[in-house]
């Protein structure tokens, strides 16, 4: 019954590796997002997709690439991981303007 789910919950990997985080929502929402929350808990939007189309692409290194195979899924692929990529990544979805529902987060640790 989880509305917005992410896998994995924890991800520990070494610098230089490539990893993916998956997100799925079963709410029928049209819009999905990726946020990064740093160690100071600051939340920053990275990407937004509406019906599989990219609509927000903030200043994010091109090592980060979102992929939306369908409107219920938005995955985040990260190439050549760096220490500074360590953070909690949240997926969110939205049924309409001004409402967002967040997933439980994926804690990424790069060593």
């Amino acid at each position, binding site marked *: 019954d989880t509305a917005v789910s992410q896998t994995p919950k924890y991800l520990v990997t070494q610098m230089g590796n490539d990893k993916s985080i998956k997100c799925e929502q079963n709410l029928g929402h049209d819009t999905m997002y990726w946020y990064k929350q740093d160690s*100071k808990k*600051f*939340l920053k939007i990275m990407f937004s997709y509406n019906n599989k189309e990219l609509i*927000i692409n903030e200043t994010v290194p091109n090592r980060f690439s979102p992929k939306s195979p369908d409107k219920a899924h938005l995955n985040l692929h990260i190439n050549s991981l760096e220490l500074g990529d360590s953070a909690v990544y949240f997926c969110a979805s939205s049924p309409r*303007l001004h409402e967002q529902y*967040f997933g*439980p987060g994926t804690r990424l640790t790069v060593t």
Partner: protein
Amino acid sequence: QQQVKQSPQSLIVQKGGISIINCAYENTAFDYFPWYQQFPGKGPALLIAIRPDVSEKKEGRFTISFNKSAKQFSLHIMDSQPGDSATYFCAASIEGTGNQFYFGTGTSLTVIP
């Protein structure tokens, strides 16, 4: 550039007291101001939200006060409880911009029993 400024960074309140968190913004085009509550290890969850055409919105013990002329809004938690201990984020968004939220920097609230 921080679009929404939030204070204080941390707050300690006695059980039963009033918790007040403040936010300020510059962009007068913002037309939606939500507050999110985040418990450790969880994602943020919508708590309460307001639009600029009203000055106050109350839901249970949570109230948003909105001052359009001052470009400020605040969250008041009445009769604060230990279960309210969490991080609170204010945010702002503009209709028609892909629903992009600009979050404040968060306030860590601790309610002491």
